[in-house]
């Protein structure tokens, strides 16, 4: 048996649970449906430190979106608790930013107005955020398109607008649920580079959901691997690459080694589950 690689973290059951910024403690979610109960999330139990970019990877239907909705306060857990800075989450928080699978832009508003939408709905002073909007739009290469309507943009551009909107109120935590899954492979690679570059600038805590192992490893400080339902977290990996992340990182042996490890974990768990 191989010695454990150093990037593989053993999960701590230390006493200082809850000292981290975000603490997910034995969280369950069961949807009651007409066809019986669906255990969407079972025993999710991990902490996230401030400043970490954390990816959740796992097969479709394993409860990633549900878990994120609970962290975001959009769903309530049926068991366990989620603490932010020590306080339980009961409702969506204004110091969180959200990016969903589809860009959900307001089609009748310009790019700039879409980015400022959270500011307006949260009744903050728009003038205070114009500079930040400009900075984000410039970082994502959208400043020249600020007066365009979403329909005039490409899919990748729309998703970048959604990310700018998620970041406009300087959230402490940005949640992204498969933001690039609707994009073609080439655009997706570009978006990964753009997001990595953006993260070198904004340094925020992030939870990023994806099906793509390479995407997760490329972008993250830490990757949590989930298995199919009943879902568990089977691996917790600290990505040992320095920032800024560069494209050529994906050619390194270590990068492929980590990706292969994650893939094996998902498949093993899947096979075990199937052969049971």
């Amino acid at each position, binding site marked *: 048996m191989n010695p454990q690689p150093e990037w593989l973290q053993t999960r701590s059951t230390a006493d200082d649970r809850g000292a981290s910024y975000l603490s997910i403690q034995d969280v369950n979610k069961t949807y009651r449906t007409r066809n019986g109960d669906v255990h969407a999330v079972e025993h999710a139990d991990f902490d996230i430190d401030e400043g970490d970019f954390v990816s959740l990877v796992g097969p479709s239907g394993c409860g990633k979106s549900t878990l994120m909705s609970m962290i*975001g306060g*959009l769903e309530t857990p049926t068991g366990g608790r989620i603490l932010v800075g020590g306080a339980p989450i009961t*409702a*969506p*928080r*204004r110091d*969180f930013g*959200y990016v*969903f699978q*589809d860009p*959900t832009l*307001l*089609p*009748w*508003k310009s790019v700039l107005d879409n980015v400022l*939408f*959270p500011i*307006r*709905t*949260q009744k903050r002073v728009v003038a205070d955020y114009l500079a930040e909007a400009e900075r984000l739009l410039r970082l994502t290469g959208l400043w020249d398109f600020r007066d365009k*309507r979403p329909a005039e943009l490409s899919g990748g551009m729309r998703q970048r607008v959604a990310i700018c909107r998620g970041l406009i109120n300087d959230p402490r935590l940005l949640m992204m649920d498969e933001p690039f899954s609707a994009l073609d492979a080439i655009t997706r690679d570009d978006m990964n580079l753009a997001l990595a570059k953006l993260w070198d600038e904004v340094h925020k805590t992030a939870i990023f959901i994806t099906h793509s192992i390479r995407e997760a490893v490329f972008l993250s400080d830490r990757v949590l691997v989930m298995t199919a339902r009943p879902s568990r977290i089977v691996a917790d990996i600290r990505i040992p690459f320095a920032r800024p992340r560069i494209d050529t990182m994906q050619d390194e042996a270590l990068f492929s080694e980590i990706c292969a490890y994650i893939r094996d974990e998902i498949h093993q768990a899947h096979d075990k589950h199937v052969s049971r």
Partner: protein
Amino acid sequence: MKLIHRLLGIEAQDIDGLSRQILMPVGFALAVLLLWEGVTHVFSIKEVLLPAPSAIWSRLQESLPVLLQHAWPTAWESVAGFLIASVLGIGLAALLSASHTMRSMLYPNVVLFQLIPKIALAPLFIVWLGIGFESRLAFSVFISFFPIVVATLAGLDNVDKSLLRLCRALTASNWQVFASVRLPHALPYVFSGMKIATTFAIIGVIVGEFITSQAGLGYLILFASSQADTALILATITVLCVFGLVFYGLVALAERWTRTRFGA
């Protein structure tokens, strides 16, 4: 043909677009009028039965002062009816979309009312409100109100679920969701309801004038028919058509303006 286009400096596809949008329908209508004109002359159809378009046109010119005098009450009553119906209709739709209780109480009844042939209720309005303009105005409001409610409510309801989730994530209030998401999204629906309502508002007033009135285009039609003045009937209808077109056009213009102003 190509040569002519080139001489005039017009691109072929411009001609194509223009001809499809304007030249073809107008040309067809003119052809029908010509045929009509020809048929009335060739078969020497009596003017009481079917006057030729040229006869209607000259009748229109000679009676223009009378026609305009009668157009006024019809016009203001239907415009006022339409405006009141728009305010009430959008208001009721907003209420129904905001309150579950109101919706379950009222919406099935609105749908049921939709099914009634509303024209049949016109005499009731006269019983209740008398033979003045009030009864015609009220009936016009009543009849043009439903398309606006139904269309507006569809627009307010049809909002993307993911947009609503975004609003929830941003802790937007119900009012903000309504004002910044539901209403702008509903605008095209509201205007399609309002465009239908323009016609309904005119129908409401005309029907009222048929039943009881001393003025208005509906009254004039009835009067002309009692005189067997078919040319005047058709001239009045022509004026009515022009008024309906202008009315519809104004609403379409308002829609263009609102949509460039507020998007959607």
